[in-house]
């Protein structure tokens, strides 16, 4: 794991030399990944946004809402549990999501491999606005979505988002994402369950469903 920075993706006025080094480090990661592939050693470049560390002076804070150091630590720990074929590209960027820093132009604008979503389940319009046309559903075993997910996925599918599925468990046959067709979700078991399920799908002013993701909780 190479700990880079979002400074590796744009100009970085707070510390330009730091930014130059992080750009170069990203290049190093890309080439190293190619060279070590044959040895089955993975190389992951992490790009956390501003993080509350001692690197910042007492009276200064990173621009925009800052990540906690634990956020990156959790991602690193999670990486070690992924299967060998999992391709990883993470940007942890609380700043970019809120657009509070001048040198980035909004969520997902410069890197289409990863994106910060404003809500748990954004609307299909939001996905299209970020040029997302395809969604891969990663579950342990099943390719088809669980019933509670299919409500949202069905909406996306109707809007023209292509839905794919992959099973992550090592003993399953599916090694590549497969195109799936989301069917109409089954009827609710009873009226009360149906009511609770619908309440859980609270529409959000930003479009889509769910609450806003917390600021400092990572991207």
């Amino acid at each position: 794991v190479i700990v880079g920075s979002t400074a590796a993706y744009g100009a970085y006025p707070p510390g330009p030399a730091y930014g130059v080094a992080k750009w170069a480090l990203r290049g190093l990661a890309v080439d190293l990944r190619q060279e070590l592939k044959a040895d089955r050693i993975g190389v992951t470049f992490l790009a956390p946004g501003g993080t509350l560390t001692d690197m910042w002076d007492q009276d200064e804070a990173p621009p925009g809402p800052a990540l906690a150091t634990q956020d990156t630590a959790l991602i690193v720990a999670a990486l070690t549990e992924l299967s060998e074929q999992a391709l990883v590209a993470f940007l942890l960027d609380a700043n970019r999501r809120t657009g509070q820093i001048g040198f980035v132009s909004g969520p997902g604008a410069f890197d289409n491999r990863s994106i910060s979503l404003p809500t748990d389940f954004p609307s299909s319009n939001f996905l299209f606005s970020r040029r997302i046309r395809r969604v891969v559903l990663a579950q342990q075993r099943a390719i088809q979505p669980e019933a509670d997910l299919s409500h949202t996925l069905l909406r996306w599918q109707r809007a023209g988002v292509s839905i794919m599925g992959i099973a992550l468990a090592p003993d399953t046959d599916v090694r590549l994402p497969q195109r799936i067709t989301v069917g109409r979700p089954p009827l609710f078991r009873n009226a009360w369950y149906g009511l609770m399920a619908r309440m859980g799908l609270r529409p959000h002013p930003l479009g889509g469903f769910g609450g806003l993701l917390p600021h400092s909780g990572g991207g």
Partner: protein
Amino acid sequence: LKIVILSRIVDLEAELQVTTRHAVITGGSRGIGLAVAVELDWRGWGVFLISQHRERLAAASASMKHLAGAFAVDLGNGEDAARSAAVAVRGAVGAIDLLVLNAGIFVEEPLIAIQEEAFRRTMAVNLDANLFLAYCCRCSVKESGRES
């Protein structure tokens, strides 16, 4: 219910963790590096910390439950520094599963006014050291361990 689930998780971990996995973390005495070390340590990894700050390194090491080793070196001092660290790692843990290249420094000077020394230092720590340490540790990294 919570208790049942937790004990199940512990069982699973016991089943999976037949051998201890080892991680080397640069800049491991504070900030993101320390957080990574704490997280992996909590998950039962043997952690090897590298830092240029002796006192902080000692304090960080003392807080680990599964410390595999610690080595104080200024990785800004080129390949020799990286090699000395790699030798220490090999002596302490042998093969490693994860190398977290995290150490970095920060200078504020604008590029058009930066002193040569500050620029070289930034590149030496934030860039060069990572390459040197990666290839010095190369022969210690287990195949299909996820990282370099």
